[in-house]
Structure formats: structure tokens, C-alpha cells
């Protein structure tokens, strides 16, 4: 490996920027440095995540007992919609690619930056504009939207709330996603360091690459669908509304043709992070490198073909239901390939259970529960009983929050020393993971049972027999709040007060660990030449001399 530890002038990217202004706000918001852009996404996303968590806590408080507790039904309708819209469009879709993809994709392939740094900054600004439009839709007369994050027709055409503006915000956010995807694909094709062939790329790069393809191909579909809804609302053209001669199921098709692949935009990068963390803390090369890389592409492709499993009870044809149920079972296979390979990687490894590894362990348990209950919903007969119940809510929170959310924290705890050059409190971090895991199951597991018993999702009120399980879930939400305060507080404290970290505290071997912490402006003193497989730990000895 080339010498990558010391930058030409020894300055980190915090001390040297791409803008004329050396410090202050403008040195950040006009910076085209991929690392600064990643950190700006991190700050913005943290704000939206916290807002959506507070909304969720209020909803859980309302559901602590039957009948009205703290809010009116209409407020509740708006809150669950907002919780969904913010979490999906502002946190979990951009989450890992925009923060960690931006920061680490160029580092991991030995590049100075992404292919189009200005486009990268533009996509951040488009994201902020989209977020601003969401906020605007809350404040304007008409009121916050109340349709649920899926904006189903015909209600979304008839509701008097600010639907058009809110979905237009989703349209704008889509452009941010497309531009980021375009940037990543070009970067991976054109800017790999000498010696980094396709099969020497770290698996996080593979996962982000596969995700970028979904971002580019699937996102335009939601864009067109949103425009059609807006046209229908403003001009009364009968595209989806049956009262005007439209087809409401066509809307569901178009919506899920994007939104199901979007689920993989959310989970694939998380799977990439898992493939980074497990080898580092098991001190062992990844088991089945090619299988994991190819399963990312397989998920990206087959993920396009399963969308109608969201619509089994909507009145689609039996032929379609059977085909989509079959395809749903097939898409479980590449996910299974990954899980088995991760577990096999740990076999006979020298495991060091540091906080990032513990996050990954909790991911494997939660994601497996989420994945397996997905098969229950993918079967036609059981889905008819469970459709639109709390079972679905529990399933996707296990997959999305237990999967992607958990890994968002895992990635933060893993790459924290590289991003900030400091360390967090390990003991507190361990407590945070443990409490998170307990709170998570307390909060969401009762929902599986409630759903099975027949509690419908999105309902403001419920029958008295559901009271005790609803109460357990609400208590879980309070424990979760404490866990999140510990987890995030530890990070915030670490950023400002944490002890200085060495450049490679975990003993990682992918390229980001070959440069200093935090990295210099253009990442490496000289572009490294790759001679090793990505997870070849025999190079650790050589790295000590770098």
C-alpha cells in the first residue's frame, strides 16, 4: 500500500475546505467536499429523525388507553402521516447512502472525491428544499396531510389538506435521490484506485452501487405518479379516481413499483455496512465475498418484481396474486444468502465484541424476525387475515428500524473515529445497545400479537381487550426514548469532548483505515495502489508501518 497516513500539509478536512471562506457556515454549505456534504446530511437527518421520534412518542401516548387521551382523531391522522413521511422520505431513504455513502464510498475505493462534487452539493440542497416544502405543507391553510405516507387514491384526491404540496415535496426529494445515485454509479465506474478491480471493492461499495441503480431506475416512477395525482387534483382528470372513470388500483401499482424497490434502497446499504463490520471485529475475511456482492445485485433486480404483494387484498387478479406471492418468496433467497454468509464469517473468527459489532448482532436478530414475518405476509392466505393490521406495522418496523435504523447507529459507531478523529464512551455505548434491543422488542413485539388478534393499523381508538398490550408497547416507547438519548448523547458528547482516536482503532483493513483520522481534504496523501483482497487481515502488520 502507498503511504496514506499523512496529508501533504498535515491538515484534516475540518481545517482545510474547498471554499474561499475558511470557517463559518459558508465554508460548509457551499463545500463540495464529499465528507462535509456527508456530515451536513448527518446533521439534517438527525433533526428530522428526532422530530419523527417525538411524533411517534406522542402517538404511543395517545394509544396508552382506549378513547381520547391527549389529542383529537384528526391530529392523530396527521401525526401518523407525518411520522411516515418524515421517517421514509427524509430519514431512511437518504439515511445510509447520503451520510455514509457520501463520506466513505470515495474513501473505500481510494478516490479523492465523488465524480461530480458540485452535483453532490446540489443534491444536498435539493434535499433541503424538499424538506422545507414538507414543513411548508404543515403551516399553510388546509392543514397537515392525513392520508398516511402512501397517499392512497381516492382519499388523497378528495382530502382537503395540503396534499399537493406535500407530495410535490416527495417529488423534489426524488431528484436528490436520483442525483446521488448517478454520482455514485459514475464514481464506482471511473474513480477506483489502481489495482481495485470490481471484486476487490469493499462490500459496502457493492451494496451502495446496487442501491444507486435502484435510485436511478425506480425513483422516476414515483415522480410521474405524483405528477399524475397533482394533475388529477387540480384539473379533475380521471386517472385514478373511480368517480371520474379512473382506476384506483393503477395508483397502487405505480406507487409500489417505486416504493417497494425503495424498501431495498433503505436496506441494501445497511447490509453493506454489516458486511464491513463483521470481518473487522471477527478478524477474519468475509465468507462468500462474491455471493454477498452478487446477492446485492440480485436483491436490487428481483426487488423490482414483487411490488404487488402490498396489494393482495386490493382486488387485483388471482393470477397476479399467485405470481407476486411466488416472487416474494424468491426475493427472500438473496437476503438469506447474506445472513448465512455473515454468520459463517464469524465461525472460528477471533471476535472482539465492541459496540459496532453489538449493534450488528442486534440487527441480525431483529432483521431475521422482520424478514421471517415478511414471509407470513407474503403468503396469500395469511396475508388476507393480517393485511392492514398491527402485524404489518410490527413487521416493517422490525425490518426498517430494527434493520436499517439499527445499522445506521452501527455505522455511526463504527466509522465515528474516522469521521471525527475521536472516540465515544464504550461502556455507555454497550449499555445503549442493550437498552435499545430490550426497548425495541418491548415496543414492537406486542404489535405482532395485537395484529394477529385483529387490531387494525392507523386506528385512533381500540377495543378494551387490546389495552394491556397497547400499554406494554407504550412503555416500550419510553424505554426506547431513554435508549436513544443515551445512544445519540454518547455520540454528541464524543464529537466535542471524546478522547482523541488513533487512525485505525478497530484494526480495519479497507482503504478508509489507511488514511489519517479525520482524513485530509482529498482523502489520501497519494492515491493508494490496491494489492490485497478487501478483507485480507494479513496486511494489518504492514499497515503499522504506514
Amino acid at each position, binding site marked *: 500500500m502507498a503511504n496514506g497516513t499523512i496529508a501533504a500539509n498535515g491538515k484534516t478536512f475540518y481545517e482545510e475546505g474547498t471554499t474561499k471562506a475558511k470557517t463559518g457556515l459558508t465554508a460548509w454549505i457551499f463545500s463540495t467536499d464529499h465528507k462535509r456534504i456527508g456530515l451536513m446530511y448527518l446533521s439534517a437527518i438527525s433533526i428530522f429523525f428526532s422530530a419523527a421520534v417525538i411524533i411517534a412518542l406522542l402517538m404511543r401516548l395517545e394509544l396508552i388507553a382506549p378513547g381520547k387521551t391527549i389529542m383529537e382523531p384528526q391530529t392523530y391522522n396527521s401525526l401518523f402521516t407525518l411520522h411516515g413521511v418524515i421517517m421514509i422520505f427524509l430519514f431512511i431513504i437518504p439515511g445510509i447512502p447520503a451520510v455514509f455513502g457520501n463520506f466513505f464510498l470515495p474513501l473505500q475505493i481510494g478516490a479523492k472525491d465523488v465524480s461530480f462534487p458540485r452535483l453532490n452539493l446540489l443534491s444536498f440542497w435539493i434535499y433541503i428544499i424538499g424538506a422545507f416544502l414538507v414543513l411548508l405543507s404543515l403551516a399553510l391553510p388546509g392543514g397537515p396531510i392525513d392520508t398516511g405516507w402512501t397517499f392512497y387514491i381516492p382519499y388523497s384526491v378528495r382530502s382537503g389538506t395540503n396534499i399537493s404540496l406535500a407530495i410535490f415535496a416527495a417529488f423534489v426529494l426524488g431528484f436528490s435521490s436520483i442525483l446521488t445515485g448517478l454520482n455514485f454509479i459514475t464514481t464506482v465506474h471511473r474513480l477506483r484506485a489502481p489495482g481495485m478491480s470490481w471484486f476487490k471493492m469493499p462490500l459496502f461499495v457493492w451494496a451502495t452501487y446496487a442501491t444507486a441503480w435502484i435510485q436511478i431506475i425506480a425513483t422516476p416512477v414515483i415522480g410521474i405518479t405524483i405528477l399524475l395525482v397533482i394533475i388529477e387534483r387540480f384539473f379533475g382528470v380521471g386517472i385514478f379516481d373511480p368517480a371520474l372513470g379512473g382506476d384506483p388500483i393503477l395508483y397502487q401499482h405505480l406507487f409500489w413499483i417505486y416504493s417497494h424497490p425503495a424498501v431495498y434502497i433503505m436496506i441494501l446499504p445497511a447490509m453493506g455496512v454489516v458486511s464491513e463490520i463483521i470481518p473487522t471485529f471477527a478478524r477474519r475475511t468475509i465468507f462468500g465475498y462474491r455471493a454477498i456482492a452478487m446477492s446485492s445485485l440480485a436483491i436490487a433486480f428481483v426487488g423490482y*418484481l414483487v411490488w404487488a404483494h402490498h396489494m393482495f387484498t386490493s382486488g387485483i*387478479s388471482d*393470477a397476479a396474486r399467485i405470481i407476486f406471492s411466488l416472487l416474494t418468496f424468491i426475493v427472500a433467497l438473496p437476503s438469506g444468502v447474506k445472513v448465512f454468509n455473515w454468520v459463517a464469517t464469524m465461525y472460528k473468527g477471533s471476535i472482539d465484541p465492541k459496540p459496532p459489532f453489538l449493534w450488528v448482532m442486534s440487527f441480525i436478530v431483529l432483521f431475521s424476525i422482520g424478514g421471517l414475518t415478511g414471509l407470513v405476509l407474503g403468503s396469500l392466505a395469511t396475508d388476507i387475515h393480517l393485511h392492514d393490521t398491527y402485524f404489518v406495522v410490527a413487521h416493517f418496523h422490525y425490518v426498517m428500524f430494527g434493520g436499517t435504523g439499527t445499522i445506521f447507529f452501527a455505522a455511526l459507531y463504527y466509522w465515528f473515529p474516522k469521521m471525527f478523529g475521536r472516540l465515544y464512551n464504550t461502556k455507555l455505548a454497550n449499555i445503549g445497545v442493550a437498552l435499545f434491543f430490550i426497548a425495541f422488542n418491548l415496543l414492537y413485539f406486542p404489535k405482532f400479537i395485537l395484529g394477529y388478534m385483529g387490531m387494525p393499523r392507523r386506528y385512533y381508538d381500540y377495543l378494551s381487550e387490546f389495552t394491556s398490550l397497547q400499554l406494554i408497547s407504550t412503555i416500550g416507547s419510553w424505554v426506547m426514548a431513554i435508549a436513544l438519548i443515551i445512544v445519540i448523547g454518547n455520540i454528541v458528547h464524543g464529537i466535542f469532548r471524546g478522547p482523541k482516536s488513533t487512525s485505525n482503532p478497530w484494526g480495519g483493513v479497507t482503504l478508509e483505515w489507511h488514511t489519517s483520522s479525520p482524513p485530509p481534504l482529498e482523502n489520501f496523501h497519494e492515491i493508494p495502489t490496491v494489492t490485497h483482497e478487501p478483507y485480507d487481515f494479513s496486511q494489518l502488520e504492514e499497515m503499522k508501518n504506514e
Partner: protein
Amino acid sequence: MDNHQEHDKQHITPYSLYVLIWVALISLTSITVTVAGISLGNYTLAVALFIAAVKSALVINIFMHIKFDQPIFKVFLLLSALTLLVIFILTFFDFTYR
């Protein structure tokens, strides 16, 4: 890494070809409009989609210069087109048998 030296060699398309393609697009549009007036039953949609496909092929190849560019872009486009085709087919399993 790929070497893109040949990138400098710009392909120059004569204006006459652009005009020709434009005329072809206009005629195909008028065919679409005409066919829409004739009752072809189940084939209406197939015919309309076929003409649309021919039109986009012309635009992508000539106007967007994909015909004269590197093969990798064709692979990317074909992949996207294939995905679209599969999405169409799967959607029709619903609409046809509903």
C-alpha cells in the same frame, strides 16, 4: 480502469438525418392518432406501445447519440428497458385477468 481516449472523437450527424428522424416521429405520431380511431380490441394498446417503442428507439439512438457512443451506455439503457418491460408484463397479469 477503463481508458477513454476515444472519447475525443466526436461523431457528427448531418442535419438531414435529424430532419428525417423528425419527419419519421411526426408520421408515427399521426399513425398512433389514426389507429386510436379504429377499434382493434385487445390489440389497441399493443399497437400504441409498439409505435411508442419505435419512436423512443429513434430518439435515443440518433438525438441522444447513444448509437455512436460507448457500448456500456447501451448496456445500461437495455437494462433499464428490460426492467420496464418486466414491470409492464407483471402489471398485465393483473389487468388482463382481473
